[in-house]
C-alpha cells in the first residue's frame, strides 16, 4: 500500500457537536486503509463543487485502527466546510491522506505532558491524548496527560472525551465555565506542572505557548496552520519560517504540509 492516496471514503456519521462545529466519521476500505496514523497528521478533504478545487486540510481527531474509521472535527468557516455539513451517512467524499508529520510519541512517553488546545485546535490533541496513554501503558511507564482546553463560550465540545485520558482544565473567553481567559491563563492559575507541551490553536496562542515553554525550560511541540494548495510538499505554498536553514529548501523555510504541521517550537519563528 502506498503511504499517501486520494481515496473516496464513505461517510459513517456527520453530526453537529457544537454550534458550527461538526464531527465527521469516514470509513476506509480495509484493503486501502493507511497502515499507521500518527496524532497531529492531517488529511485533505475535497469539496465536491467545481468552484472549489483545493483540498481542505483537517487534522485527524480520531483513528480507529480496527474499524478503519477516521474522525474529523471541523468548524464551519467558509464555503468548503459549509458544503461538508451537507454530507450524510452513505455519501462519498474524496480524501487526500495521510498527510504531514505528527507528534513525536516516543519523546512524549513517560512524561507529564501538557496538551493545550485553543478552540478548533483541540481535535488533533484528542487522538494524541489517547495515543500517549496507550504508549505509556504499552511501555509500562507512568507518564500523564493534562489537557487544558480553551473555548469561546460554554459549548465545551470534545472536553468530556479528553477526560478519559487525564485531568481536563477548561478556560473560556466569556468566563462562563472554568478559568476566565485563555489556556495560558489557565495553566498559570491552576499552577500546573509538566515536562512537555503539545499545543494547537490560533497563532497568538501559539506564540504565548512558545514563550511559556521557554520560561519553564520544557520541550514544546506546536501544530501550525498555513494556507495550502497541494498538501503534499510540491507547491511550496505552506511554508513556516525556521530558525535554521531547512534541509529540503536550503533556505529558512519548512513546508507545513510535509515537515509539519507539528514542529518543535525551538525550530520555528512564529
Amino acid at each position, binding site marked *: 500500500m502506498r503511504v499517501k492516496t*486520494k481515496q473516496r471514503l464513505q461517510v459513517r456519521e456527520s453530526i453537529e457537536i457544537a454550534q458550527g462545529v461538526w464531527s465527521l466519521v469516514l470509513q476506509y476500505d480495509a484493503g486501502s486503509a493507511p497502515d499507521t496514523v500518527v496524532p497531529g497528521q492531517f488529511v485533505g478533504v475535497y469539496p465536491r463543487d467545481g468552484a472549489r*478545487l483545493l483540498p481542505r486540510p483537517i487534522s485527524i481527531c480520531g483513528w480507529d485502527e480496527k474499524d478503519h474509521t477516521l474522525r474529523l472535527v471541523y468548524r464551519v468557516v467558509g464555503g468548503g466546510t459549509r458544503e461538508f455539513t451537507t454530507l450524510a451517512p452513505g455519501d462519498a467524499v474524496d480524501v487526500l491522506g495521510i498527510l504531514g508529520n505528527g507528534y513525536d510519541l516516543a519523546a512524549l512517553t513517560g512524561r507529564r505532558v501538557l496538551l493545550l488546545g485553543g478552540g478548533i485546535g483541540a481535535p488533533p490533541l484528542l487522538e494524541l491524548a489517547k495515543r500517549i496513554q496507550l504508549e505509556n501503558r504499552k511501555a509500562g511507564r507512568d507518564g500523564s496527560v493534562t489537557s487544558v482546553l480553551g473555548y469561546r463560550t460554554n459549548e465545551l465540545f470534545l472536553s468530556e472525551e479528553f477526560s478519559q485520558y487525564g485531568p481536563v482544565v477548561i478556560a473560556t473567553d466569556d468566563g462562563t465555565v472554568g478559568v476566565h481567559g485563555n489556556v495560558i491563563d489557565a495553566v498559570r492559575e491552576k499552577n500546573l506542572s509538566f515536562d512537555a507541551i503539545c499545543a494547537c490553536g490560533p497563532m497568538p496562542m501559539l506564540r504565548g505557548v512558545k514563550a511559556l515553554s521557554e520560561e519553564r525550560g520544557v520541550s514544546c511541540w506546536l501544530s501550525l496552520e498555513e494556507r495550502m494548495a497541494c498538501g*503534499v510538499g510540491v507547491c*511550496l505554498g505552506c511554508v513556516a519560517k525556521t530558525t535554521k536553514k531547512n534541509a529540503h529548501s536550503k*533556505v529558512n523555510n519548512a513546508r507545513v504540509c510535509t515537515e509539519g504541521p507539528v514542529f518543535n517550537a525551538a525550530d520555528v519563528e512564529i
Partner: protein
Amino acid sequence: MSVTIAGVTMKNPVMTASGTFGSGIEYSEFVDLNHLGAVVTKGVSNVPWEGNPVPRVAEVYGGMLNAIGLQNPGVEVFAERDLKFLEDFDTRVIVNVCGHTEEEYLSVVERLQEEKRVDMLEINVSCPNVKQGGIGFGTKPDMLCDITSKIRKIARQPVIMKLTPNVTSVAELAKAAEAGGADAISLINTITGMKIDIERQRFVLANRTGGMSGPAIHPIAVRMVYEAASAVKLPIIGMGGISNAEDAIEMMLAGATAVAVGAANFHDPYVTQKVIDGMTDYAKRHSLERITDIVGILR
C-alpha cells in the same frame, strides 16, 4: 502517442507544469513517472531563493492564485538531489530556469550544461511574482529576443521560452522568441490576479497579487495557444487549466504539440495518468495514426 519537440522525442504529449510537480519526488507516490511524456521541474535559480512571505496561495473560483516567489534550493542542490532522483526514471526532464537578471539566467543555464539528465530547458521569463526581473523580459519583445539568443548560444539542450499571458499580443512575443532562436515556446504562465479578504479588509496574499491557474483560465490559454500557433512555426507546449484529456486535446487542436498539467495535480494527484489514458482513448476513437495528427488542424 509519442511526440517530438526540437528533436527530443517523448512517449506522449503529457508533461507536468513547472512548479506544480516539484521534481516528481512527491507525486511519484501517486503516479508512475515512467509514464509521463516529461517532468518539468520547478524554476531553479543560481543560488537558493527564499520566495515570498506567506500566505502564498489562495483559492479562487475554479482555480487558485499563487505567489510562491520562486522559492528554490538553487541549481547546485537541484542538480545533486533532484536531477539525481530523476536518473532512475525513463521520462524526459525539462528544467525550468529563472533569474532576476540576464547574468543569473545564463549562469544557471551554464551550470546545467554538465548535466546529462537535462533533456530541455524551459526559460521562465514570465513569472509575475518576482519583482526585479522575470516578467520584464517576458513583456518586451526586444528584451525577449535578446535573452533568447544569449541563452541559445550557450545551451546544448533545446530551449523552450515560456510566455506570459499578461500581454496585449502573445503573438508578438512568440515571434520575438522565434526571432531569438528559441526551439519551442510554452504558454501560458499564470494570469495575474488578486483576492481581498473583505472582512479583515486586507489582501489575502502577502504579495498582494498572485498568478492565477486552474480550469478558470483554460479558455484564455486555448485562445493564446491558437494565436501563438498562428504566428510562429515553432512547436508549442500548451498549458493553462488542463484538468482532463478533453482539455488537453483542445490545446492540441488549437496548435500545441504537447501539453502540461499544472494546478490540476493539486485537485487530483493522479490526473496526469488520467490525461494520458483519456488521450489514448481519443486517438483510438478518432482512428488517429499519430496523436500529433490533430495538432493545429483548426485554422
